[in-house]
């Protein structure tokens, strides 16, 4: 389980934002540190980040 603990501490690398866009609108995303989510303001949806890995699967997005 030692490996898992290490992964939990991983935080989101904000330099990724340079490359990532919303998979639906292809527009840039904003990182929200409080909720640890990637937000698309235009569509009003947010994508979760788990263990530092952004989840950009449209089905997993949350409506804000």
């Amino acid at each position, binding site marked *: 389980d030692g490996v898992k603990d290490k992964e939990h501490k991983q935080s989101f690398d904000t330099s*990724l934002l340079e*490359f990532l*866009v*919303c998979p639906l609108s292809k527009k*840039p995303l904003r990182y929200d540190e409080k909720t640890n989510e990637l937000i698309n303001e235009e569509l009003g949806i947010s994508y979760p980040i788990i*263990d530092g*890995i952004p*989840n*950009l699967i449209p*089905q997993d997005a949350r409506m804000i």
Partner: protein
Amino acid sequence: LDNMNNVFIVRRAFSTSCMLCPWRRARKVVLSSGQLAHQSQGLVFKGCTNFKRWFSSRTANSMNIFDRNMKRRQKNWAAALQDGDKYHYLRDEVGSRVADRVFDIARTFPLALDIGCGASHIALHLNKETIEKLFLMDVTVNALKLKETEIPTYRVLADEEFLPFKENTFDLVVSSLSLHWINDLPGAFRQIHHVLKPDGVFIGAMVGGETLYELRCSLQLAELEREGGFAPHVSPYTAVTDLGNLLGQAGFNMLTVDIDDIQVYYPGMFEVLNDLQGMGESNCAWNRKPMLHRDTMLAAAAIYKEMYGSEDGSVPATFEILYMIGWKPHESQAKPAKRGSANMSFGDLGKIIQPPSKKQ
């Protein structure tokens, strides 16, 4: 079945249907009185020998063959297996062959993307001298966490049908054995083209053509015999002849498409099925049958062994791997000469003895 003659007729009829690719709306489900009709009126087989074919009107966005959520669950399950490594043989092999093709290009790629990386099967065969940074992308978080590679990587959970990357981002996009579960393959190619930089290259491998034809035929024959009809258990694959056109339509140029047959020998049909499940390659077509009778399975296993088995009792499973290489156009790339710019007639070809460069 009464005689071998029958068997071959059936095989021929099906090999025609196997050639159908997903975007031609291949859905064969109706099973009644020896007639097999496509849901989308694409094809009707009457009996075994005479079949008629109607071309259905093709409309955009009508392709929805695979249950993507189901596929994700299957892949997640497979990646979470304790002994999952033992099912990686095919992906490792194809991954290394894709990596070979990457090494063929004498370049260093500052930023690359692996679509449907699984347990980093390609990345493990690459090195950080060739790829400086790599994005690993898959639909299952379990797979993303499996292996560490020497290349600095970013991991992103995303769907192959919805790439979450900016335009003109990558110098190289690779993909190994994940594109065959995509509903909208032309769209996926367009998106890959979109995220590539000009003069960027896409190197992909997918199963296609006659992959698993032994399994397909055995199951179909067994089901016909035991249940009087059959449902598709092996998904429709892309034909190699369509692949070049698809890539061309998506905007790629300087295309290379080639096929590799990989035959794997198994003790029997059940081992084939078990391994496919372990690879996360179970059927996920929307019109899949929820269950297969044990009786039919046993019959299929017997047919498999009878028709394809080798002398030592093992049975082969064929995987036809289609490799594709396509470049995003850039002005620095080689182009055909302008029309009419030739200064020699083709009729004079026979008269040329020396190479043309010396003549000038």
